[in-house]
């Protein structure tokens, strides 16, 4: 009797072992991709757009059969755009949720802090729209799909002098890394082309009252004002420029790229031209799907931040499909990526050795209260990232 009992126990145990082993062989239930973005605090608007963009990417991937038949699951935490909170969130994503890879839908400070954690843990991370140069220099696991400010500034310069024929240019620059890199690259390009900088000034983030500065710009009488900033500063700049009677063409950049810019600036936004990577009039299938579905699902117009975060998830899904779920495979697949078409702001031609994306950049003009196609810049001399 005793030995029979023992035999039964042994049999049951071996059955369990076989079952457990079998489970290990089968496909996982889902692939987890982590996302951190600020859904509270001063940056909540961008963080929410980023979350929307990532959700749409997951929806798109899962509606198209997942990654090799496995569904993608998004794990999102709020980092409030704070570096310390981003570090905590990165640890949580890596250790608790065990994500395969992660996307930063946050600002540069938080993204830089978190990227060091992901690099140390060997978990690939793609920054969606944080533009600080140091982010991708953290290490070989850290990639970016946003356009570098140095590239965008140069394209802004090409827009001003080559497309619009500006001779006298005023620079109004937001005083942070983003604004400074934009202004330097812009200035270098336009002065080499013989244009004159007739006014230059920096202003602090969050400024609302530009009238004193705009009055001075008006006196300098430029053809073009290259004004960097985010949508709330930008809206005040273009509104107040109209109020003080400054009629020069205003050129902005992707910081303006938000339906909220159009709402807050109202009629004053008409005619403003921005450089951005989201082309509303694109006939590419993925871009149209993104813009249409975003509007349907969230009852808001899509913006650059949402589109970039969408693309970050899409490019990661592609890399997991090609290279498997191990970090080395993902990194290798990203490095070998060619002419990636499944990006709303694409196509992505390739990643550079510095893990920056190379892709065409567009200019959009505000007409009838909406962004429309103005120009596209495809010249490798302009759009190639410097590293």
């Amino acid at each position, binding site marked *: 009797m005793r030995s029979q009992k023992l035999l039964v126990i042994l049999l049951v145990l071996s059955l369990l072992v076989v079952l457990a082993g079998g489970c290990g062989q089968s496909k996982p239930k889902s692939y987890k991709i982590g996302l951190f973005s600020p*859904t509270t605090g001063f940056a909540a608007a961008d963080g929410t757009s980023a979350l929307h963009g990532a959700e749409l990417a997951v929806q798109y991937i899962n509606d198209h059969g997942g990654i090799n038949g496995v569904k993608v699951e998004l794990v999102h935490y709020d980092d409030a755009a704070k570096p310390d909170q981003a570090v905590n969130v990165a640890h949580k994503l890596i250790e608790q949720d065990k994500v395969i890879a992660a996307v930063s839908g946050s600002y540069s400070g938080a993204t830089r802090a978190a990227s060091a954690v992901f690099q140390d843990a060997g978990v690939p991370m793609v920054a969606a729209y944080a533009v600080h140069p140091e982010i991708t220099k953290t290490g070989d696991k850290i990639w970016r799909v946003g356009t570098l400010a140095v590239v965008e500034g140069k394209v802004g310069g090409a827009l001003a002098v080559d497309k619009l024929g500006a001779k006298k240019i005023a620079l109004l620059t937001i005083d942070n890394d983003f604004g400074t890199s934009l202004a330097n690259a812009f200035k270098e390009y336009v002065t080499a082309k013989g244009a004159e900088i007739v006014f230059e*000034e920096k202003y*602090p983030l*969050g400024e609302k009252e530009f009238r004193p*500065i705009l009055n*001075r710009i008006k006196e300098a009488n430029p053809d073009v004002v290259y004004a960097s900033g985010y949508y709330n500063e930008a809206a005040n700049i273009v509104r107040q420029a109209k*109020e003080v009677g400054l009629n020069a063409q205003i050129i902005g950049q992707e910081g303006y790229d938000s339906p909220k810019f159009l*709402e807050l600036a109202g009629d004053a936004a008409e005619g403003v031209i921005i450089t951005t990577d989201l082309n509303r009039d694109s006939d590419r299938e993925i871009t149209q799907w993104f813009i249409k579905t975003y509007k349907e699902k969230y009852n808001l117009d899509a913006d650059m931040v949402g589109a970039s975060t969408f693309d970050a998830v899409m490019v990661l899904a592609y890399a997991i499909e090609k290279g498997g779920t191990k970090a080395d495979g993902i990194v290798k697949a990203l490095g070998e990526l060619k002419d990636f078409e499944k990006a709303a702001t694409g196509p992505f031609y390739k990643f550079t050795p510095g893990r920056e994306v190379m892709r065409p950049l567009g200019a959009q003009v505000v007409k009838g209260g909406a962004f429309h196609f103005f120009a596209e810049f495809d010249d490798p001399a302009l759009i190639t990232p410097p590293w």
Partner: protein
Amino acid sequence: MSLWNILLDTLTQGSIYFLIAVGLTMVYGILKILHIAHAAVYTIGAGVGLAVFKLTGSFWLALIAAMLVSGLVGVIIYRGVYFYMLDQPRIVPLITSVGLFLLIEDLLQKPYLMGPYQHAFPAQEVFPSITLPWGTIPNAQVMILTLTGVALVALYLIFTRTRLGLAWQAAAQDREMAGSVGINLNRAIALNFLLGSALAGAAGVLVGVFYNSVYATMGDVPSYKAFVVIVLGGMGSVTGTLAASFLLAFAETVLLASVGYVLPRDAIAFLVLIFVLMFRPQGLLGR
């Protein structure tokens, strides 16, 4: 930049500072409480104003509703919170006030209230722009200047011509003594909060229209900047607050219009504060 532009920008910016800070000054004058949550009342005013404007399309209804709701919120904050702390050390209501500010702001940021986004408040057209021989005053600035003027006159009359104003002055000098000579302190203080908070609500609407944007964290800067104004003016002095508002606005505008952003706007404000306190520790018009 012309003298006219400097004058116009100083007057508008100063008016905005005054409208936000005057309620704080009134509360400090009578209760000696630093009422940080006042900045949240200001945001609530802007939010209510925008909601009513969207519903009715009327700027004036929006302004009245914003003032009513903000005034009530102010009274609720007093009766529900500060009332129980009047005999506590000053640090207690101060810390409570900071907590209250953060709580209200976080609540306002919930998607079912104001959400994370900025919202346009397109009511600028309600006012005409005025062309004078030496320049034009755009409509949004006409709005700020006239309504601040109205508020100033009303405040002056209430403070000097009514029993309530006298009661406030008495309570500011000595609360216990004022109570013992038959002034209904609870009523006087509640009305003080009502008026001060209603003005903050009005400021929220005006600033919202002026910059065409209303959002949950719009109280962040006023929450500390208003204190520069009231300390500079001499804690508790309404005329001092007025003087300080325009002095700050003038310093900021002149500096920005002549040399630009050598310093952030707020740094200019704090430098002016330090400079004035070196020579007048009691503030411009403090006693």
